[in-house]
């Protein structure tokens, strides 16, 4: 029996390794593509050519080698828009993900460790937030604060901080009840000191796994907002904007929808698999 478990563990470990490598690989490609977008793009993502609209991608009848992924209905290069859209997606993932993580985790830590009235207030807020349909909330916020990159990041933080707060609160509560926390206090640590030195390191693995998940979610929220035409601006190339356009012309030019969709799929999947993989890495049983 013991042998079987070791085998299974080895298998799990190997699969985890592969998963981490694949998702890490795609995110690295994405980062490089985003950083070097101006060098890699054969065309300006905004330049239109109404006579050269809806050119199909490579290997299809009527393709133009100058446009390897084809053009949209306004004759804009799909590859260039994809690369520049990747920039916005990555910025949103990093900034919104981190900001949501810091704010949500801090509130969760305070609520879970100090209990009492801070916990009451924060828990009530979480309840209220959970009663909002998140997508509608985000759309509403963008309508209020106006479109733009900063607005999108702000909206993501405002709608999603509860994801961290809920989990961290529960973890901090569980940790706070343990003996080592009590002994730290006996040893003369202050409450805040205990929270930062004892509780925080123990909830960190969960927080990091959640953070990568949140980055994937941020990319999706950005895509949804640009799909509803409330994102950056209608001109700036975003994956969601391309999808929105591709959805309307799906029967005439499927490629305008397919390529950004593939990118979104891979990115979201990579972030979540990275999170899962990291969580398992930190799991002492599997390690």
């Amino acid at each position: 029996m013991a042998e079987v478990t070791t085998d299974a563990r080895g298998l799990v470990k190997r699969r985890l390794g592969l998963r981490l490598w694949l998702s890490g690989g795609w995110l690295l490609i994405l980062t490089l593509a985003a950083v070097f977008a101006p060098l890699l793009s054969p065309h300006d993502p905004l330049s239109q050519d109404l006579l050269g609209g809806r050119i199909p991608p490579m290997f299809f009848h009527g393709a133009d080698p100058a446009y390897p992924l084809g053009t949209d209905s306004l004759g804009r290069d799909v590859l260039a828009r994809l690369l520049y859209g990747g920039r916005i997606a990555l910025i949103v993932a990093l900034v919104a993900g981190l900001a949501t993580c810091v704010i949500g985790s801090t509130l969760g830590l305070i609520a879970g460790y100090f209990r009492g009235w801070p916990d009451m207030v924060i828990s009530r807020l979480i309840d209220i937030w959970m009663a909002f349909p998140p997508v509608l909330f985000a759309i509403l916020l963008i309508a209020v604060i106006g479109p733009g990159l900063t607005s999108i990041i702000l909206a993501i933080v405002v709608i999603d901080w509860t994801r961290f707060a809920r989990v961290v609160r529960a973890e901090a509560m569980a940790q706070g009840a343990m003996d080592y926390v009590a002994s730290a206090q006996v040893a003369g640590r202050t409450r805040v000191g205990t929270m930062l030195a004892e509780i925080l390191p123990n909830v960190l693995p969960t927080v990091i796994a959640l953070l990568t998940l949140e980055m994937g979610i941020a990319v999706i929220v950005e895509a949804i907002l640009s799909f509803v035409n409330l994102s950056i601006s209608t001109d700036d190339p975003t994956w969601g904007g391309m999808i929105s356009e591709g959805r309307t012309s799906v029967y005439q030019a499927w490629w305008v929808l397919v390529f950004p969709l593939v990118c979104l799929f891979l990115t979201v999947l990579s972030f979540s698999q990275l999170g899962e993989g990291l969580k398992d890495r930190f799991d002492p049983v599997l390690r």
Partner: protein
Amino acid sequence: MQLARAFLIRLLTTLVTLFGVAVIVFFVIRVVPGNPIAMMLPPGASDADVERLKALYGFDKSIPQQFIIWLSGVLHGDFGTSITRRQPVLDLVLNRLPATIELAGMALIIATIIGGFLALTGTRLRGTKTEAAIDVGSGMALSIPDFLWGLLLILLFGVLWPVLDISGRVTPSLQLPFTTQFYLTESVLRLRFDLWRDIAGHMLMPALALAIPLSAIIGQLLKQSLKETMHLDYVTLARTKGYGENHVILHEALRNAILPTLTLIGVQFTFLIGGTVIVERLFSYEGLGNMAIDAVINRDLPLIQGIVVVFALLFTLINLAVDMCYALLNPRLRHG
């Protein structure tokens, strides 16, 4: 007695939550730049006209005053009048709500069937490649959100192999004899299966998009729960009594494993309803969420308010119902 007190407290916190939602949405949308009244009048309307219309909708009063007026209206069942559609908000919401409920219900049923099937198959074929495939597949399925599944389905069954309709709730040219907005249910009751096919054909893709991530979650949890139950003594006893593996799983283990899954389905169902907003938009399905997005784009404040509050009411009621079911079904909580 204790149970009754717990329910009462739970009911009170629910009311506080709903009040909080109403306050937040009320104040947030009133900071909206852009004058909703100006958009209603033809260009060149006099200032007096603008003022009159403002007064009609109550926008001339202070925001706290507006809130009190709105709240007392709501308590009397009056959610105000939509600015763009010029109809009572309550009528508009009630007109669209059945479409969303049918969509969410269909998605929930699909998710439960797929999830249950995956969990049972995975448990029956423990330790095989099939189980591993189910694990990997559901791990991926749940990390992709409904929005992306919807787009993928559009490409697959709308473009590549066009068998389903990609937009709307029903083919517009059809004559509908319905008296309620529950089209799918009513078409069955009236035995109009020709209409049923059309309506279900429109609903299938958005419902699937909503159902896929949830089915993966249900499958994973139920399988985990079954796994734990399969090691319990009474299951071993049933097995030594000579019952086959299928019987043991379906009749002995499942009954015990289903409770934690049930509460999860409740919570996840509210997430699913939240997901209808964008999925309805994606498929141009005429439900509440689609109307909500239009309302935000058109700055129709009374309508936005009404819809958000109705969503919040739906969410909190589902959570309340799940908590109550759980307490009633779980003997440990009943006596504890």
